[in-house]
């Protein structure tokens, strides 16, 4: 197997991820429109594909405004960069095909969890630095939500780690040679799916922005490219979660006939579509209900899953 130089992987993955993220904006708008009996963007370019480009031009041309009342202008400007940085960093450990990975860390999974934990700082700091009550409420909600959902997000993946015996993502893919982990770890998959949705702050977990309640929550005061970074950050985030689901539970790039890269992208897009479908169909729970759900239902389930998996692995290898 020929492995390309990491630099090529890096540039390639970066371009593809950014491409997917911006393509997703178009895809989401078209899919939502399809499910909502309307057209969606269909005027700019073929099938409205250039809409994203037009939006980009618009967003770059906007005034780069920092609210004069901001608590800290430096943090206000830095906050959107943090979210982009952390999700992009996570992609360094994602093996997209045999040999195509920027850095195949032996603690890849932990690195991913660490980076997604850091991501919440972006939201909290943005909410605080905006010095706006709606932003603050959004930031507070984000902090509480992320903390609660991260706890069982990590735990839900430990079953996979037990089965694969490694934190290395390529190792986990390799361990699924015979059977995708979604079969033995179905509960873990469901838990991770929900935690992933919450992690990306998408409906039904979009409480930090909750348009009908908090106007735009933590990013109420953001405009222009700083808003754009939150926006793109969200799409890179769901791409990341979809990629992680594919790797951890659906055998990564593995699949018959088609080349590995195609299989990987195919799986990623199935989950992206699923995320968009969720947004089209579900209402938003209340904050306290969301919390109760995480701590009273999801956490015990994740612990139980870990316990049972551990016992089974022990019995088989012991």
């Amino acid at each position, binding site marked *: 197997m020929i492995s390309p130089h990491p630099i090529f992987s890096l540039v390639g993955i970066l371009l593809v991820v950014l491409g997917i993220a911006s393509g997703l904006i178009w895809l989401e708008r078209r899919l*939502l429109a399809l499910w909502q009996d*309307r057209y969606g963007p269909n005027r700019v370019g073929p099938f409205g594909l250039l809409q994203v480009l037009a939006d980009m031009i618009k967003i770059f041309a906007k005034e780069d405004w920092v609210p004069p009342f901001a608590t800290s202008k430096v943090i206000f400007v830095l906050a959107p960069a943090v979210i982009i940085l952390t999700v992009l960093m996570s992609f360094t450990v994602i093996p997209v095909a045999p040999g195509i990975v920027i850095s195949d860390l032996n603690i890849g999974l932990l690195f991913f969890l660490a980076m997604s934990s850091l991501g919440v700082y972006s939201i909290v700091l943005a909410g605080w630095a905006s010095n706006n009550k709606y932003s603050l409420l959004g930031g507070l909600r984000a902090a509480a939500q992320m903390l609660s959902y991260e706890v069982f997000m990590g735990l839900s993946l430990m079953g996979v780690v037990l089965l694969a015996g490694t934190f290395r993502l390529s190792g986990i893919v390799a361990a699924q040679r015979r059977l995708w982990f979604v079969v033995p770890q179905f509960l873990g998959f469901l838990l991770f799916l929900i935690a992933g949705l919450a992690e990306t702050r998408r409906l039904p977990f979009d409480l930090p922005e909750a348009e*009908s309640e908090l106007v735009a929550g933590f990013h109420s005061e953001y405009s222009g490219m700083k808003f754009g970074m939150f926006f793109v950050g969200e799409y890179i985030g769901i791409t990341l979660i979809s990629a992680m689901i594919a790797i951890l539970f659906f055998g990564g790039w593995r699949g018959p006939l088609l080349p590995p890269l195609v299989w990987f992208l195919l799986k990623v897009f199935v989950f992206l579509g699923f995320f968009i479908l969720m947004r089209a169909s*579900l*209402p*938003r729970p209340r*904050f306290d*209900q969301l919390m109760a759900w995480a701590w009273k239902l999801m956490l015990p389930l994740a612990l139980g899953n870990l316990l049972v998996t551990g016992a089974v692995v022990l019995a088989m290898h012991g």
Partner: protein
Amino acid sequence: MPVAVATSLADTVREKFPQLPIVEQSVRDNIPTIWAPAENIPAVLAYLKSEASPRYAMLYDLTAVDQRVRAQRAGEPPGDFTVIYHLLSLEGNCYARVKTSLREDHLSLPSITPVWPAANWYEREAWDLLGIVFEGHPHLQRLIMPKTWVGHPLRKDHPARATEMGPYRLDQEKEEREQEALRFRPEDWGMRHSHEGVDFLFLNVGPQHPGTHGVLRIALQLDGEVIVDAVPDIGYHHRGAEKMGERQSWHTYIPYTDRIDYLGGVLNNFAYLTAVEKLAGIDVPPRAQVIRIMLAELFRIISHLVWYGTFAQDLGQLSPVFYTFNDRERAFAIIEAVCGARMHPNWFRIGGVAQDLPRGWDAMFRDFIAYFPPKLREYDHEILGNRIFKARTVGVGGCTAAEAVEWGVTGPNLRATGLDWDFRKRQPYGGYENFAFDIPTGRTGDCYDRALVRVEEMRQSLRIIEQCVKQMPPGPYKSLEPEATPPLKERTMHDIETLITHFLGVSWGPVVPPGEALGVIEASKGGNGYYLVSDGGTTSYRTRIRTPSFAHLQLLPQLCRGSMIPDLLAILGSLDYVLADVDR
């Protein structure tokens, strides 16, 4: 029709208060009307509310009239201003009208807020628009007009048009003054900044906010995300509709009514014309009655569809609003075919409707009757059956039937509490007695029950429409009498009377005999009433619009205390108000 009460209202009150000079007045709408001295109003109303037989449990409306330029007041005690209380007895199914006269040099009377807390906004409004002081009112501040406004707009000496007021200028100083006047000061409302170690956050919601459905402002006192108290601030959508009624002719005011509850379309025409026709004594021919009911029920569905989609959207569900608006568009296609317009059809006329139904109208209605029920079933699964939707609405923002009556709540919001009060059934108007339909009710009066009631109402409306289509009587679409406005053109060629009335009606405006009448209908949002006073001219002397949304919004603080910010949005969405309907 309201049932006759054994002893007259005046006698009942005289029996209790023998020393009071109670004056009885006969009016065109046959609502028992008495005049009582201003200082005794709270005692008389308290008696009528809780002791009299029947008891008048609901303060339906409270308003005032500037009588200073009135010409024809036969049978009324003298006075410069009149304050009018409309009471509704649910057990007796009748109204009572209590009036009191005030002199210009002493425009004050005791507040009835101790008797009915719901009088709060009504009295503030009467002070704001007519300058009547209610002594003992907890917060007698402007409600509708800006705090900086000078004068009381509904007084006869206040200009009615912008052109009478001189050019408007907004300089820096004035802008700052206006901004300062809008600042929310918790102390003004008896709110504390902190209590027992908890610092409260004051959050200004609106007037520009995606969740308030229009220009409504609510100041929230928050402990974390829990609402300690709320103060709604209205008036941002005020267009002086009542004042315009005093300038437009009886006929040309009809399009203005379309814009009161702008989602209700002809329902507004219906309420206004019910009052006008009572006042003028005009009968509506059967075909016109059925056309009116058919369109009114279609508009009830149209209005409820807007509520359905936006309510789901308030709870974060993004898709239903597109589905319900699609269905609404189909209903609008019918409205467009019949009326030529969509949201503001301006279709009813004094004595009938503007034109007969177009060819092929019944096929359009039949299509819709076949199309709509499966859609409603689909939404039952998608919205009402959704578990997150239930978690967000069941047990949220509930109120009891007694509370609802106390605060003047009508329509679906009242029926959600379990009380089957519907003006179409209880006091049939315009021919509703000829139709079979059920009145859906809820149990707990929470957000979910309000939703259930509205959804079932759409089915019942469809039932009524179906009966209209099947039983559309032949005959004229407008009264053949000359009083119909404008009289039928064919008739003008037959007799000189109709020709003269037609000419006068077109050039001058129809004349309505002096008197007063209250016309109440069951609009999509609740009891919508027009109280009209005629001085025998071509325009109304006083047009009072009692809207359901006004009463419902006043109840908001009670409903949302102790719940969280997301609940506030659920409650706002479930109340189904329209700001134009609140502010007029």
